[in-house]
């Protein structure tokens, strides 16, 4: 029962936040944090648990958004069905891409995923007949359940964060299962994991496809929430931003992924008065975290706690 406490607490906070934050503007910002969280939670499985670097996740985010957006605007498919289609298509593509890519390691994997992301971005820009090119397209219909249309920020807020909560429950289960242990063993040493009988290639591709499919959901949500998409939302900078969110929060902890998405997702709001300087602040945060706390902010909390608890337990002995 105890392990459900953090999740329950999370749900309470998420439910309560809109009551505290009366300003609809903040609700809108939190919708984006939710969308980012979906990706970062699933990306933390790839990055933090399986130890595989992906600098191309914006591609899956984009493929999800474009598939869902195009199906609903061009072929008038119902939004929910379009979202499901985008998950399937992204999943298949991720499998086809992941099969060769995940054989690579380290810098090679990073560059290959970066290159793949860039190719998808070039495709969004260049396949003008299909995607409307650099200017993007709008009038994407909104999601609805029966008569309930998710048209204002607050409704979409609950939809997104409900999905985040479901995903968290799912991911927390995965982590504590056989798959989670297998993934951690890959991170430790792929060779050793293989020797112990863990089918590392199969686990890596499963988790890669899973995170791509979740990213597609996030992309679909983005498309149906903003109702307009263009390629720049899904460029290499977004991929790097997503990885940074995971790392800043703490990559071997799913809560860190949410924390990172919340911090960096709302950063542009605090940095508004810096204007264009935000890119510098963002780069500096990334560098400082990487140099001094590569385990992310969650690890900082852990260090403090360890020190505190350590002191307590030492006192009686003294």
């Amino acid at each position: 029962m105890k392990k459900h406490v953090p999740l329950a607490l999370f749900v309470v906070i998420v439910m309560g936040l809109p009551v505290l934050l009366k300003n609809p503007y903040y609700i809108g910002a939190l919708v984006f944090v939710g969308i980012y969280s979906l990706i970062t939670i699933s990306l933390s499985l790839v990055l933090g648990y399986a130890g595989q670097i992906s600098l191309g996740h914006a591609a899956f985010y984009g493929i999800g958004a474009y598939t869902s957006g195009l199906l609903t605007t061009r072929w008038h498919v119902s939004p929910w069905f379009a979202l499901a289609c985008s998950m399937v298509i992204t999943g298949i593509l991720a499998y086809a891409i992941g099969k060769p890519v995940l054989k690579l390691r380290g810098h090679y994997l990073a560059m290959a995923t970066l290159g793949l992301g860039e190719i998808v971005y070039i495709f969004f820009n260049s396949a003008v007949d299909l995607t409307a090119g650099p200017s993007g397209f709008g009038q994407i219909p909104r999601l609805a359940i029966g008569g309930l249309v998710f048209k204002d920020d607050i409704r979409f807020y609950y939809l997104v964060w409900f999905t985040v909560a479901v995903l968290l429950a799912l991911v927390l289960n995965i982590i504590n299962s056989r798959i989670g242990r297998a993934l951690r063993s890959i991170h430790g040493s792929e060779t050793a994991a293989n020797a112990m009988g863990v089918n590392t290639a199969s686990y890596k591709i499963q988790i890669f496809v899973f995170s791509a499919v979740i990213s597609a959901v996030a992309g679909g949500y983005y498309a149906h929430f903003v109702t307009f998409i263009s390629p720049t939302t899904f460029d290499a900078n977004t991929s790097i931003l997503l990885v940074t969110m995971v790392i800043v929060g703490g990559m071997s902890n799913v809560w860190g992924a949410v924390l990172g998405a919340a911090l960096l997702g709302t950063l542009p709001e605090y940095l508004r008065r810096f204007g264009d300087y935000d890119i510098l602040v963002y780069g500096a945060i990334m560098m400082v975290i990487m140099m001094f706390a590569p385990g992310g902010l969650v690890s900082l909390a852990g260090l403090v706690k360890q020190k505190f608890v350590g002191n307590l337990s030492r006192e009686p002995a003294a």
Partner: protein
Amino acid sequence: MHSFSITLQYIFTGIAVGSIYAMVALGFNIIYNCTGIINFAQGEFVMLGGMFMITLTTTWKLPSLVAFPIAVALVVLVGVGFERIAIHPLKSPSVLVLIMITIAGSILIKGVAMFAWGKEPCYLPHFSSETPINFLGATILPQNLWILGCLAAVVIVLAWFFNRTLVGKAMRACAHNRDAARLVGINVKQMVTLSFALSAAIGAVAGIVITPIILMDYQRGAMLALKGFGAAILGGLGSGPGAVVAGLLIGVLESLGAGYISSHYKDAIALVVLLGVLFIRPAGLLGSAEIQRLKKF
């Protein structure tokens, strides 16, 4: 124009751009050999080279011959500064940390460049006349010859440096085996800093010579770096001759592809080559599979 001349024209253009990729690839290789790091900020060195040159020649009105070495020196300072501040203090960092730190470095450099030079592309006059030279029905811009000349100069200087000088040989020793190099009294940390300096210098040269043709803006570095990395991989990561051959090859392929297939997908060609090589033969054309395995990838 005959189809032969057109093809020749594409090849000339490709060789010029390819020379730049080759120089970027050489920059990647030097740092990689010495440290095992892929420097994601390599493209920013190229961008900075062009930008410094523009400021020195247009704002400060320095003659090109004076501005060139100053611009290179300034980029070297940035490269060394970056290594000293962000990479030098780290104790046994993981690959992921190194990747993210060099990406963070590239974001910071890009951000500073955006403020220093604005978002608009900046213009640098050609080194000599802009009248194209006719050759078998195709034309060559004199600037393209400058680019080729700079690549040749860089290659000759590097070959001399690594084969004939004590410091160059020490750097090669580091590339072969860092621990053994340390045992014979080579200051490995110094060599790492030197590799960043050298790599920044080559990047700066590439940036300075290409700017008159492509113009330069603060974001230009990323794509050049990605393609340069493609060249480094195709040539075999760490191989000098491989980098040059592969850089030229990718440049020509890209130019032909843009001409005959689709100019929209021009940028994708180098990336497809990069992925193809990674999937089929990660050791590259001239690289040795044995060495790759030793480098623990």
